[in-house]
């Protein structure tokens, strides 16, 4: 099929001449140039099933025709409510191909949020993964007048049991697409040829740590700038990503960062995408795939570090001694690399080569980063200690910075020019300035979004008429080249002593401990700083077991005086690095794990400070009560 469709697609593009480059046209060109290379893999029944570029493009065309058959017109919205899988990419690219707009929804969102997002975006078609997601969609169907069809991917529990007229199985949808394709050959290609740079490509909802999510509109031109910067522009790895690179796709595709690393590097550079089975299987999938490019949010890197710590501690004596020795060496190598910006000196190279034989090669293989040539952390601030650990064991780690509103493109640490504690240098083509009065970072470049959907007030608040975007992050220049972020403007705390404090730094230092999962700093207009700490139940549980400390539940564990002492030692250690005014005077352990369903976390697992402070107001009051223990 590809043999006949690809040339016609090219011909269509050729006649229009000015058709904008979209992710759809990039996929089409890859299918023409390298039809038999692997584009993506998904593990089904124990086997990584490959999809080649020609199969990818062929399916995209069928899906595109399917959308046309359902009556999707240009600028209509198509929503996807699924974990990362091939259908996500097929739908995304096909939607862009027919000049419609993709809206990603978090599979973890409760039904109420799904209803709000579907109604607000005005999506006409929803691609829902399974019974769980279909249930959510059906529950809110009446609140979403524009939603016409729900296409479900997994028939189990749906087919034969649900008789709702809006429901359509993916196979039936594909069959409709194939029929439409036979009846209207070239319809999708004609739409692609008419695509312009100002067409909306996708609607990405911000996580909404402070209020309702807002729908950031990204155009084809925005996406193309992001794709170009991330791939050919050298904004990521050096040499740039290519068809020999592998990535593991495991973070939600509705988030702009995962979209960059999965969909956009895939279409833009031909990187092979491997879908993790689920977030719980990421460690195992990492070991299997051994990606060459790996993006993680701080939580992922912290978790890997915690896993290494705990597994070394429970290894046999010889292994423990050897590994601890080489991890001490890697600490020094890491420190040296931090000083040189990521370039090895002869001494560190020699130390690393010997350590590679005894520890680093095997350690990296175990945690799945053996072949990583470019690792990135972003989407939230991370403690420098965590980054240094990975640099020490030989994983080239780079902190990058961007946000939904600027297509995730702003700054990044470049290989060989890494400065720890900064988010790096502005990418090529990015104008970045720091407001002298407020310290807020502003960016201007072709990736800056077109505004929030149906919300001109919010758009005007962040987007100046001359194109400058207010990021809402406060930062400063380091040596005139690198940017350091000190915090979110709205999170800055002013203590009673009049000191401005960005909570992220201290929180991340606490979270660098393997025993701390969440830390929420409180202290705005208060006499001193206090922290609510959520423990990492795996590592603390293991720690307790080794000390023969019996416990039953999470709550029971947090109530143990020994556990409180353990966390106190972590807090004391962090306090030692700070002047008294920035020290945490008191803390309490959260009696439950924070949860999205309780409104304490966003879909991206970011903490909603107000919600936490409200939910645990009693604990906070205790912390400020006079005469209590520390």
């Amino acid at each position, binding site marked *: 099929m590809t043999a006949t469709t690809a040339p016609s697609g090219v011909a269509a593009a050729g006649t229009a001449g000015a058709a904008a480059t979209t992710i759809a046209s990039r996929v089409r060109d890859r299918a023409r140039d390298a039809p*038999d*290379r*692997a584009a993506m*893999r998904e593990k089904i029944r*124990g*086997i*990584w*099933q*490959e999809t*080649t570029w020609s199969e990818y493009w062929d399916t995209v065309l069928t899906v595109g025709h399917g959308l046309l058959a359902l009556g999707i017109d240009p600028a209509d919205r198509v929503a996807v409510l699924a974990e990362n899988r091939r259908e996500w990419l097929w739908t995304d690219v096909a939607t862009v191909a027919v000049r419609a707009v993709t809206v990603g929804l978090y599979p973890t969102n409760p039904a109420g949020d799904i209803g709000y997002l579907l109604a607000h975006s005005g999506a006409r078609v929803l691609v829902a993964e399974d019974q769980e997601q279909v249930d959510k969609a059906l529950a809110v169907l009446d609140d979403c007048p524009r939603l016409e069809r729900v296409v479900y991917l997994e028939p189990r529990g749906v087919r034969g049991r649900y008789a709702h007229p809006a429901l359509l199985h993916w196979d039936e949808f594909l069959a409709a697409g194939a029929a439409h394709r036979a009846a209207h050959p070239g319809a999708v290609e004609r739409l692609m040829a008419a695509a312009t740079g100002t067409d909306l490509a996708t609607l990405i909802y911000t996580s909404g740590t402070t209020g309702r999510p807002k729908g950031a509109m990204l155009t084809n031109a925005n996406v193309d700038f992001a794709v170009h910067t991330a791939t050919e522009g050298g904004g990521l790895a050096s040499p740039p990503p290519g068809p*020999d690179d*592998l990535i593991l796709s495991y973070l939600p595709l509705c988030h702009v960062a995962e979209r960059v690393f999965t969909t956009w590097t895939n279409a833009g550079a031909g990187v*092979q995408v*491997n879908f993790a089975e689920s977030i719980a299987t990421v460690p195992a999938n990492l*070991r*299997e*795939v*051994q990606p060459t490019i790996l993006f993680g949010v701080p939580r992922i890197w912290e978790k890997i570090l915690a896993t290494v710590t705990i*597994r*070394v501690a*429970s*290894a*046999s004596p010889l*292994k423990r001694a*050897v*590994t601890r020795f*080489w991890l001490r060496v890697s600490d020094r190598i890491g420190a040296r690399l931090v000083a040189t910006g990521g370039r090895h000196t002869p001494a560190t190279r020699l130390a690393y080569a010997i350590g590679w034989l005894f*520890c680093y090669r*095997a*350690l990296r293989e*175990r945690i799945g980063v053996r*072949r990583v040539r470019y690792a990135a952390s972003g989407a939230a601030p991370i403690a420098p200690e965590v980054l240094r650990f990975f640099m020490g064991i030989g994983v080239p780690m780079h902190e990058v910075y961007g946000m939904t509103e600027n297509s995730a493109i702003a700054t990044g640490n470049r290989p060989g020019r890494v400065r720890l504690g900064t988010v790096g240098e502005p990418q090529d083509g990015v104008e970045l300035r720091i407001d002298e009065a407020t310290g807020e970072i502003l960016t201007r470049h072709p990736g800056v979004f077109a505004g929030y959907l149906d919300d001109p007030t919010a758009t005007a608040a962040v987007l100046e008429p001359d194109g400058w975007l207010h990021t809402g992050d406060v930062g400063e220049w380091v040596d005139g080249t690198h940017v350091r972020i000190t915090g979110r403007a709205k999170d800055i705390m002013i203590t009673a002593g009049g000191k401005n404090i960005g909570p992220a730094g201290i929180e991340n230092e606490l979270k660098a401990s393997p025993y701390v999962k969440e830390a929420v700093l409180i202290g705005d207009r208060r006499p001193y700083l206090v922290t609510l700490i959520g423990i990492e139940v795996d590592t603390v549980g293991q720690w307790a077991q080794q000390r023969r400390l019996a416990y039953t539940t999470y709550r029971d564990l947090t109530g143990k005086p020994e556990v409180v002492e353990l966390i106190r030692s972590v807090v004391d250690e962090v306090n030692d690095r700070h002047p008294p005014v920035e020290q945490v005077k008191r803390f309490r352990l959260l009696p439950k794990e924070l949860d999205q369903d309780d409104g304490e976390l966003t879909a991206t697992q970011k903490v909603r400070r107000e919600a936490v402070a409200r939910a645990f107001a009693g604990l906070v009051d205790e912390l400020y009560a006079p005469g209590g223990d520390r």
Partner: protein
Amino acid sequence: MRTSRPRGRPLLRTSYAEDLALLDTPAKRVSTAVLLVAALALPFLLADDLLQLLAVGCVAAIGAIGLGLVTGYAGQVSLGHAFFLGIGAYTAAALSGDPDGRVIGLGVTDIALWLPAAGLVAAAAGVLVAPLATRLRGLYLAIVTLGLVFIGQHVFNEWSALTGGAGVGRPAATLEFLGRPLATTDATATRDQKLFWLMLALLVVFAVAARNLARSRIGRAFTAIRDRDIAAGVIGVNLPRYKTVAFAVSSFYAGCAGALLYTVTGFFDPGSFSLLLSVQYIAMVLIGGAGTISGAIAGAFFITLLPRLTRELQAWVPFISTQPNEVPNVFQVETILYGVLIIVFLIFEPRGLFGLWVRARNYWKAWPFSY
């Protein structure tokens, strides 16, 4: 047409063929090749008497693989292995024997005929016994198969037209292929060198066939039956059919091993097929590692070489005598060692020699962690 999968990622399996490959990692391919080359070179390095012993080891390994299939893979404990070995040995000997001799002989001297025939006759006997296995489990099956050995011994002792009679015996099958003798000393190689190569080649063929069977649908059915026969039946494994297949295949291996076993020494006696022989094969499987082909091979060589090892031991431990009339002597040590080894393995490493290897391999596989 698919692209080949990315290099250096043995766990990234993109097809079931890859998932089921016999040698799925480069390390396994290289080590198997090295092992094979080393084995082929052995006859140039070792003395003839040791080679003869190793040839016996190869044949014993074929028999142990057979028992491993029915006991280790399919979980049907069989103490009747000596019976099937005997059937194979007498079928082959009778087929290739001298028509004018003192015992039955048909004069079919070609190994290409008598070896499969021996296997098939033994397999037929296995199929006859299999209905017992579909009715009985565990200890009861073991006892019933034990009965086979006694019946067999009685028949072999009494039927002197076939076996030559107790204490007398008869010549083993003739090693000929297309009219040319396979194992006679000539200018190129000695008899024992040729014997070793022949038996090694046969062992490789039988071992690869068994590995293939073990990873097939049949092999999976075997392991399902072993792990829990009721559960296996519930998920659709046809129990009578697969138990019959297990006994048939196992007996086929035993028959072939029996036919070959005595060609090395050239002569055998009906007293050989006693309970002791069955127990020896059980020991090979248990010491080597139940449920693995490599384990069965390792166990077979270990048990075959054990007497030789105890004799070598005498050089290092001088107070052990080589004279049967002194105490302690090597024969006593051998018997004691034999028992001690079975006890030690069952208690400390039930997975056998193969388990030791797995343990060592896992230690390094998990480096630098412990799990």
